[in-house]
């Protein structure tokens, strides 16, 4: 029983990380139909930005979060303006172009900073564990779980309670008509992409104490995050959240029953089946394109 409880917590922790990474991707994919394979590299940039802030200016992870968000959002904004905007009418080509951008970012970091692993210290405030009976939980992981839920709520507010969110939803539903009402779809897209990239940066900052920070860290993450988005359904926030929990917990429980790798294979097989029978995801949104 203890083992299961601890494994459930591990699954939840993994789900929170997946959610943080997938949220940005879900918004970009849902709003613009762009499959951003450079998303993993945004996460990587966020991780390196945190490392740089901590090493050179002595800024801890928590105060660094807004700075990292802004920095990666700017990178995303520039990439959107320079490349992605030219490819809106060719959605499959965005896979290729963003993969190329990913290579460029990865190599730029490798050349500029080096290929060796970097370490970022977690915040002192959140070190240590909390123990409830047999269940041992790392404080930092608990913080990440709470933080990811907060970001999810914040994004939901942004989408439903602000003017920007309203315009974005209008553009998603029908770009042509929205433009007739004076909404600048291009601007909305740019901001959406920048926001998604910024979220990926924050995710990168949060996972630095848990993962090793290397230039190739993004490649594995982007596949997982993308599966979360597809399983959750096009552009659905609640879908992405439940898919993250589902995949995180399934991976954790499968690795308990069989081993880690076979557990992951089982989850991938499950995802393939799910896409086959529900290609629009668990929570499809009604959109007109």
């Amino acid at each position, binding site marked *: 029983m203890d083992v299961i409880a601890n494994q459930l917590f591990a699954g939840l922790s993994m789900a929170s990380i997946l959610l943080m990474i997938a949220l940005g991707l879900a918004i970009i994919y849902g709003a613009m139909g762009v499959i951003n394979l450079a998303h993993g590299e945004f996460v990587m940039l966020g991780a390196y930005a945190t490392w740089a802030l901590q090493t050179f200016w002595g800024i801890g992870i928590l105060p660094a979060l807004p700075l990292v968000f802004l920095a990666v959002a700017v990178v995303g904004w520039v990439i959107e303006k320079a490349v992605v905007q030219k490819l809106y009418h060719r959605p*499959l080509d965005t896979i290729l172009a963003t993969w190329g951008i990913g290579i460029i970012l990865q190599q730029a970091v490798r050349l500029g900073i080096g290929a060796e692993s970097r370490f970022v210290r977690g915040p002192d405030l959140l070190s240590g564990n909390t123990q409830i009976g047999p269940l041992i939980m790392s404080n930092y992981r608990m913080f990440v779980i709470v933080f990811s839920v907060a970001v999810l709520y914040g994004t939901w507010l942004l989408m439903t309670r602000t003017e920007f969110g309203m315009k974005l939803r209008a553009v998603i539903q029908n770009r042509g008509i929205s433009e007739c009402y004076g909404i600048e779809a291009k601007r909305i897209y740019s901001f959406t992409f920048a926001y998604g990239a910024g979220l990926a940066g924050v995710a990168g900052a949060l996972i630095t104490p848990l993962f090793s920070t290397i230039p190739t860290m993004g490649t594995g993450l982007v596949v997982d995050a993308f599966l979360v988005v597809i399983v959750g359904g096009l552009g659905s926030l609640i879908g992405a959240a439940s898919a993250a929990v589902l995949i995180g917990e399934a991976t954790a429980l499968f690795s308990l029953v069989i081993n880690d*790798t076979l557990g992951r294979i089982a989850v991938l097989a499950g995802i393939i089946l799910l*896409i086959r029978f529900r290609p629009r995801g668990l929570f499809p949104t009604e959109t007109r394109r």
Partner: protein
Amino acid sequence: MTSRFHYDLIALVIFAVVIAFGVPALMNYDGFELNTFARYLALAIVSAALALSWGTAGLLNLGQAATFGMGSYAMAMHLKLRASDGLPDFMGWNNVPELPLFWVPFESLAFTLLAGLLVPAFIGGLIAIFMFRARIAGVFVAIITLAFLVAFQLLVINQQGQTGGQNGLTGLAQLTLPGWTVDPYSMGFYYLVAGCLTVALAIGVYLTHSKFGLILRAIREDADRTRFFGYNVATYQTAIFCISAALAGWAGMLYTMVLEFASPTYMGVSFSLAIVIWCAVGGRESVIAAAFGAIVVNLLEGRLSDVFVEGWHLMLGVIFVLVVMFMPRGIYGLLTDIGARLRGPNRRQSPAKARPSPTQHLETGQEP
């Protein structure tokens, strides 16, 4: 249609003559250089295979490396058995007491060659039936094949006792055909690979210009209308997926012979997307262009990495982004556009103007 067929035939002949006579002369008949070039030629086959499914039928298969890896492991298993008396060395290290059952038939060369083609075709066919019966299209094909690739690579790495795990299969023997031990640094081997590539391209050109290819292109343009004409779309898609997988397996077998080892990195996401890059740079609408793209990119990669040890990957990324943005139909598209312009404005507009991208209609995932 027939004139395009003639152009393709001429291109194929020129291509075959260049790789058969031009390249060895340029390389001074040097064994090492020719081995490197034979590697590019093997990769050209898998790039052409992707052009068949992606360019002709519009099915972006991000898992092409999985079928490539199956072929390369089939050949490696045969060569490993030839190199060891009884049990391969790595099985001993992993406490595998006797040869696993699925290794036994790879003692036979004929079985190995068949398996290298048919196992990828069979697995590819299973995935294809699974997807296309449900009318999965567009992005979802890419995602399912990608997820399959990741799962397959994990499985191969995980089963260390049977597959050599992360190390792959090393210490292979040289292939012995009746009366010929194939030395990968010999002229004979180069001609073997070049011959295979030419045959593979001939098959590809034939398929794209046959009625079968025409129907595939119709499916790419509008699957529903093709269905209304009474064609069974899923059957055609499955067929091209199988053929493409078999060609990829063929390429994998040659690749193992060139490098003299098989590694799970052949089934990695990076390698699989690299295949897509070659195909896109060359031009996905023509198998010859896709093969040419694979050779050019790998040649550039080889040369650039000599000069710029650190920065070549960066340049490759930049080149690729530029190609996707400004030459969406690759080198092939550039050539046909120039050709159309030379023939004058009175002639029919180039297909590029009429339809910006062959994949445009795939925007919505599942067909209604």
